[in-house]
């Protein structure tokens, strides 16, 4: 894997969707290429930021909804 090929694998890599061989090839490349390593880090950081900040607005389903579902189903 070379620097030109890396970008198209980054998304799959950070989403855990790469095949084992490709994953290894990418890992080996970024180990000795600071620029691509940084690309991967930025992309992962971006994903983490989305997860973190979105979690702050996650809500509990209203208790009445839970009750209603149980009443209607059972």
């Amino acid at each position, binding site marked *: 894997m070379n620097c030109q090929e890396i*970008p198209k694998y980054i*998304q*799959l890599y950070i*989403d*855990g*969707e790469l095949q084992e061989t490709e994953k290894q090839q990418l890992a080996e490349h970024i180990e000795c290429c600071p*620029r691509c390593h*940084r*690309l991967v880090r*930025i992309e992962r*950081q*971006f*994903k983490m*930021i*989305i*997860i973190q*900040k*979105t*979690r*702050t*607005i*996650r*809500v*509990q*389903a*209203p208790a009445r*909804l*839970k009750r*209603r*579902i149980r009443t*209607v*189903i*059972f």
Partner: protein
Amino acid sequence: MADDQKTTELSEKEKQQLFEEEALPHLNALYNYALSINSSKQDAEDLVQDTFLRAYRFFHQYTPGTNCKAWLFTILRNLYNTRYKNYKKKPGKVHYDDYEEIYDFIIESDLDSSIEDPEQEFFHSILPEEIIDAINELPEEFRSVLLLADIEDFSYKEIAEIMDCPIGTVMSRLHRARNILKKKLVDYAEEKGVITAESRQK
């Protein structure tokens, strides 16, 4: 209960118990996702309630031990599609060309050469409401794929089943969704003066 036991062989009471154990714990995830694709809390609640109703009715089709969460999300999405098929707004038009890879400004610019990771400043400047607004402004299909991948942690294959589209579509929507978000967040950062237009064009 053995995993290979068919739900059809269960008594009503056993079925209820299994449903309590496997399906109902996903209520919060379904509700949060429903909120993100519906315009009102009431619509979201109705959609979730209908999802569980249908899930219980077709619970014999569910194989215990398999991914119940993905199964429930697929039902929810089907209901949503049917309900809004006729008057659903088309996803907003996005000019993909506008959203090129934006790493370059981060990579090439040295905002301050003494800082080892200039992007840290950018990331830390992002406010939760900026992300939330930017996500909410995404066309619905893009927003869904992003939330299903990043927040609900589904695999591309599961998302393809839930959204009823090819895996390739999941991948390209996810990629575009992230690029649109990055672009928006960079715009916000520019407005706040965290990064400058010059450093971006370098």
